[in-house]
């Protein structure tokens, strides 16, 4: 999705080095990559949408079991993680601004900050996963749950691990993209003229945050007032 290296042309005039041969100008190229990322995010909405549908079906079918499962989750750690992610969206938005205005050092620091916050989220998430492992709340043959909702609480935890796991996978991919963008910024490929790589990486990052904004209340909070 990222642009091609410039091709030598026979036109006799010099193109911007980031302009791919099949585009007329950087504006067209930037619009194309932004639209491409939006379309990709639409597919992501449908991808997670399938999971949310499965969640909603079983939540309405087994409300008590889902409330019981929800009570086992750590709202404090989940809440901290929500704050961490929202802050990372702020640093990401500021990074896009720094890229647009051509502040390379600021851009790099903000990318680093975004990555640190993303890594902190994953760290806290793995602590939560470890607690669930200790409490034998991993669905499957070793699952332990004393109450009467044994089977259906497994459904809750299956969904919990699949939904947060896929979200975490998207975070890891996001960290990879941020590393890539950091290298590009460091090498000076990203400029005030050519900042669309940072912009579309930012779109992706915000999308992954928004998924969590839906996951957190559905998994951690809804049951507590049910």
């Amino acid at each position, binding site marked *: *999705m*990222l642009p*091609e290296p410039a091709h030598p042309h026979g036109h006799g005039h010099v193109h911007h080095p980031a302009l*791919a*041969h*099949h585009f007329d100008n950087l504006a*067209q190229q930037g*619009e*194309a*990559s932004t*639209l*491409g990322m939006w*379309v*990709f995010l*639409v*597919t*992501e909405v*449908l*991808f*997670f*949408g*399938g*999971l949310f*549908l*499965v969640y909603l*079906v*079983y939540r309405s*079918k*087994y409300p008590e*079991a889902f409330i019981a499962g929800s009570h086992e989750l750590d709202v404090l750690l989940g809440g901290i993680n929500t704050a961490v992610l929202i802050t990372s969206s702020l640093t990401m938005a500021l990074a896009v601004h720094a890229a647009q205005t051509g502040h390379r050092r600021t851009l790099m620091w903000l990318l680093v900050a975004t990555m640190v916050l993303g890594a902190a989220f994953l760290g806290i998430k793995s602590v939560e996963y470890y607690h669930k492992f200790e409490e034998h709340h991993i*669905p*499957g*043959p070793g699952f332990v749950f004393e109450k009467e909702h044994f*089977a*259906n609480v*497994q*459904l809750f935890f*299956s969904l919990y691990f*699949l939904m947060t796991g*896929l979200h975490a996978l998207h975070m890891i991919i996001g960290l990879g993209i941020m590393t890539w963008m950091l290298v590009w910024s460091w090498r000076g490929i990203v400029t005030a003229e050519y900042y669309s790589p940072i912009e579309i990486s930012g779109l992706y990052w915000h999308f992954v945050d928004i998924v969590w904004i839906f996951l957190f209340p559905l998994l951690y909070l809804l049951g507590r007032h049910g």
Partner: protein
Amino acid sequence: MASPTILIPPRHYLNDGYGVASWLLTRDHKRIALLYLAAVTFFFFVGGAFAVLIRLDLATPAGDLVSDETYNKLFTMHGVMMVFFFLIPAIPSVLGNFLVPIMIGAKDLAFPKLNLFSWYIYMVGGLFTLYALVTGGVDTGWTFYAPFSTVSSTTNVIPTALGIFITGFSSILTGLNFIVTIHRMRAPGMTWFRMPLFLWSTYATSLINVLGTPVIAITILLVAAERVFKFGFFNPALGGDPVLFQHLFWFYSHPAVYIMVLPAMGVISELVAAGCRKPVFGYPFVAFASLAIAVLGFLVWGHHMFVAGQSVYAALIFSILSFLVAIPSAVKVFNWTATMYRGAVSWDTPMLYAYGFIGLFTIGGLTGLFLAAVGLDVHVTDTYFIVAHFHYIMVGGTIMGYLGGLHYWWPKMSGRLYNEALAKLSAGIIFIGFNLTFFPQFVVGYLGMPRRYHSYPEEFQVLNVLSSAGASILGVGYLIPMIYLMWSLRYGRLAGSNPWGSVGLEWTTTSPPPTENFTETPIVTWNAYEYNAPVEGHVA
């Protein structure tokens, strides 16, 4: 038709670099189209080989050729290969890849590297699935219904499903590429309503690819998670709901039928206009019919589940919505027919396929109305009537469109003409073989022969032998084009830039086109299909 002195252009995309790397690392959409052409042809013949074995087994009532387990694997692997690795990718990734940039006057798709990457994803998925099929196969049917697929089946469910999962990303990324390209890369003057109708149908198909494919992706992940980690999403023993699987599966897999047939409809619009030398009758209606099919296609999945324990109310709604899809489909058929009315109707090979498409798609579509009616559908559910119906759409529709398009644009792709007499002969053989294969299946299905059984009562043998005989004719029909198309690459007469005398940007550039498609970016001042009113400056 062609100008008297035809020369092969000195510089074109086929001689712009030689050797394996110049193909496997190419970013040229035209070369990638040819990579797809080779790949989908391979998977088509793999899927076809399974069909041969199925029809051989069904030649006798006892099913003497293979065991029932093997038979289960054969129809599963036939379905998986044909649906996911041929019918869904064929027209978009071969003809779409080649034509979308040229038809809008662009140098390439918006994301050429992503386009090449899509081909690699497709190949990895295809080879992965092929490996799973060769090392034991899978017996769930291409529909992977739970809980059989998630709990009971002991065959290679996960590797097959993961192959489909991987290939899905190729569909998504190709669709994304087309959408962005059509939005952002059109040449000056190429407005939406000047675009050839093939682009409208490709655009509509891409919307389905982008919106539907992720849902099958997550469904496959759920099935895999259930098999590996013993989750219970679709397992009633653990509180799961098998019908939920069917909803998720058909939410993609019904629109997938339109992924297969919409691009073929786009091809037919081009063929009919060129073959009748007239503008397509009611252009905006045909264009919007594509979008209407894409939208309505997402709302009818429940008609696959009339016997799966849906509420009567849901069945009623899905039945009405399914009838509605017939409207835009019929708009297209009527408009093609109206285009032919008083047209200079040609009998060239592409037109033969267009006639075939219109006839077979109409039969497939009308029998689809039988199936949208709940009462009748309950009677024929899981019989050969269903098998015949969807083969009329998928084979009679999609493959007729694909072959017609391949013949129409072959001179553009290769720069050479194929043997017209052989091409007409094979088009005829395919049409006859197809009908002999699948028409008896309507009858035998209506009489009550269920699908997916490797033996059947003796009273059905005559119809099954007819069907098997037809399949062998059809197979011959598919092999002949392989031979004369390959032959034409070396020995065919030079085509020149516009052998059919067609309008459309693709015919204004050389055959084969240069790597950047046009030496100068075209400026479009005419509408699509201006056969009766050539515009100044337009090379017709």
